[in-house]
């Protein structure tokens, strides 16, 4: 049985080429790896090596032939024990198979599907009627980590100044004393490196909590977060898992300038394979961080420095955990829906108070989870109020509010009585001067104004 040597494709896009030169002639013995001919593509001349061994029985395409289609036979080899004359007589199988790549079926649908097949949103947590404690967001985060670390020895915390310094923002206060330096680890200031190291530890069976002093610095680590942490489960066909939490303050603090004041919510929310959470209250912080640590997926946990010192009531229960993917209606109302996350929830609630004085009854939704996104809760609210204002600290272009607007077009178009209005940070790097910074960030007045506008007031 003679062996056909086929015209190879030498790049992902090549369909034909020129057979520039033969390095063998009829009767030559050919070994695996031996260069047998040269092929010219539109980009380069490349050598073709034999894969099979044998003796050249017939050259089917002469030197200098142009436009030789990929996968057409170019020569015949006589296999061991076969006569060259016999093999040479064997007609090449025609027609040559066409390259598989050209047979690729058209995309299943030209319409961009919604982010994921709709999954029923998880149940909201039951209303807490038990005892509560009044704690700061900072303490709630620390308690969440400590409680989970007591239960699972594979959980550890690493980051800059998390151990001996007790946390740059004192979030990890006391953890080194309780858990020791094996589990509470100060890192060098090398975000790219320790984010990747954390991913490797998660692949290796641990459950890291990686603290970024702020998410501004995580931009250096973004390749590891997205390419390594978020995509590997999929790229491995489900074999690999990466249970890791990347947490730290996100967004503007107070007059720290443009490089230290960015909101990354929409950046991470864009990425399949990640969960993205943004707590507002201490109860959010505790319940969601515990959920994040328990989750088997990579989780981005966006905190806010200005909220660390604010106190809220938190259920006094070590098993208090919030569902991931569920927004919370913080204030019920019938005239307009205001959707916000993180520190902007507080501003939205302030705005709602002011609006109430003006006779507008606003419903305030705390998103809590940006991926998955609780479209259902928002749509149900819009069906009631018919008006929607989105509030975020980050930039407006391609922000969370943009996505929210698109989702309302898709899911609530017929219920809207006014276009969705976005309140967002101004489209400039955040300035340092106190007055300019205040102008650049959304304030409750801006929210009031937007709500009045969608209510035609």
């Amino acid at each position: 049985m003679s062996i056909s040597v086929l015209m190879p494709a030498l790049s992902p896009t090549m369909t034909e080429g020129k057979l520039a030169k033969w390095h063998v002639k009829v009767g030559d013995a050919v070994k695996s790896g031996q260069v047998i001919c040269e092929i010219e593509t539109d980009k380069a001349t490349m050598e073709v090596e034999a894969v099979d061994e044998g003796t050249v029985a017939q050259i089917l395409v002469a030197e200098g032939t142009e436009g030789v289609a990929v996968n057409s036979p170019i020569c015949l080899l006589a296999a061991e024990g076969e006569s060259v004359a016999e093999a040479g007589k064997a007609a090449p199988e025609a027609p040559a198979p066409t390259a598989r790549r050209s047979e690729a079926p058209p995309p299943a649908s030209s319409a961009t599907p919604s982010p994921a097949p709709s999954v029923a949103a998880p149940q909201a947590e039951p209303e807490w009627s038990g005892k509560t404690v009044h704690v700061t967001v900072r303490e709630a985060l620390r308690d969440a980590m400590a409680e989970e670390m007591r239960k699972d020895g594979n959980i550890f915390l690493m980051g800059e100044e998390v151990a001996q310094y007790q946390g740059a923002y004192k979030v990890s206060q006391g953890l080194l004393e309780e858990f020791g330096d094996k589990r509470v680890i100060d890192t060098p200031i090398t975000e790219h490196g320790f984010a990747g190291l954390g991913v490797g530890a998660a692949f290796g069976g641990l459950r890291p909590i990686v603290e970024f002093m702020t998410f501004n610095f995580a931009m250096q680590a973004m390749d590891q977060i997205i390419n390594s942490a978020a995509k590997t489960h999929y790229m491995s066909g489900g074999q690999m898992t990466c249970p890791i939490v990347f947490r730290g303050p996100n967004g503007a603090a107070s007059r720290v300038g443009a490089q230290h004041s960015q909101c990354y919510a929409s950046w991470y929310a864009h990425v399949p394979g990640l969960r993205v959470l943004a707590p507002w209250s201490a109860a959010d912080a505790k319940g969601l961080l515990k959920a994040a640590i328990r989750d088997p997926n990579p989780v981005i946990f966006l905190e806010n420095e200005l909220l660390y010192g604010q106190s809220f009531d938190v259920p006094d229960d070590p098993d208090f955990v919030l569902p991931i993917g569920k927004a919370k209606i913080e204030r019920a109302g019938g005239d307009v829906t205001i959707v916000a996350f993180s520190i902007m929830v507080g501003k939205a609630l302030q705005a709602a108070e002011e609006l109430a004085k003006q006779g507008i009854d606003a419903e305030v939704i705390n998103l809590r989870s940006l991926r998955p996104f609780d479209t259902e809760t928002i749509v149900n609210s819009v069906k009631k109020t018919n008006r929607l204002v989105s509030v975020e600290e980050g930039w407006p272009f391609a922000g969370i509010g943009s996505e929210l607007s698109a989702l309302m077009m898709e899911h609530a178009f017929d219920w809207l009585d006014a276009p969705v209005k976005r309140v967002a940070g101004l489209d400039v790097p955040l300035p340092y001067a106190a007055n300019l910074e205040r102008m650049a960030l959304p304030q409750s007045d801006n929210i009031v104004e937007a709500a009045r506008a969608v209510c035609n007031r």
Partner: protein
Amino acid sequence: MAKPAEKPKVESLPAKSTSPAKSSRPGDNSVSAEELKSFHRSMLLIRRFEERAGQLYGMGLIGGFCHLYIGQEAVVVGMQSTIGDADSVITSYRDHGHMLACGMDPKGVMAELTGRSGGYSKGKGGSMHMFSRDKHFYGGHGIVGAQVPIGTGLAFAHKYQGGKNVSLTYFGDGSANQGQVYEAMNMAALWKLPVIYIIENNRYGMGTSVERASATTELYRHGEAFGIPGERVDGMDVLAVRAAGEKAVAHARSGAGPYILEMQTYRYRGHSMSDPAKYRTKEEVDKYRNERDPIDHLRKRLLDAGLVDEAALKVVDAEIRKIVNEAAEFAQHSPEPDPSELWTDVLIGA
């Protein structure tokens, strides 16, 4: 009895923080005749597998990027012989050889190359993204250098879990200039993590030679700033690799921290399938192929020592050819992934 190997060129860098590295002892007879034969077999499997992958690429059955390991076989085969089943391995996108050397099924690897459901990643990863938890092979990473912090993290997990396992973290001369590599080396040395950094110096990062990319070309010394001992090894000689590997693995396993091995090797093919490799001369390539080929070298050694005869080698050739043919058959007949697979494995429990 194996003929004592020639002493490879070994340049040691004693680190201040550790005991001075001794030179490798490639002739210490720690390699049995059976092992030598298995090295030959493993290298030949990689060679024939890669040649076939190149052919399937040429037929349009493999798409995208495909980086072949031909020429570098001695590195991974020598190194893998120094570790145990529970040790972890991670590498870049030139990864088919590592997977075969880890004992992964050639059928599953080839079927991943063709993007079929029988592939290790169910066809969703491709050439650069394959994994095997069973074999402790952690990929297959497509971003230059990204596997180095991850491999260091695997070493972190090994130490945290309290065992004696080590992480073999392979990367190329191209990665050796990546910032994250040095961030990882610093932490590995700081925390004495059991990781062996294996720099496969095949002399070109895509089309840029080491001399044109690295301010200092003694890559084995690139951990010097962190006190990491390093050694330059003849990566075309599987026994030299084995000897250096044993020492490095023992160092890491003992708790003394990381170790760097710079393997001087050569890839015969272009960077990827579409690279005509015009940045080097034909003479240079031919010189390596004809004079330094790791498989020819070991074949001759086996014959000279009387451990095998031509007939026995022919039997091995036929066996390997059969394995590769079966892998190629499987890879062409395994069905494409079901459309439902599009939405699976994005998140767990979602």
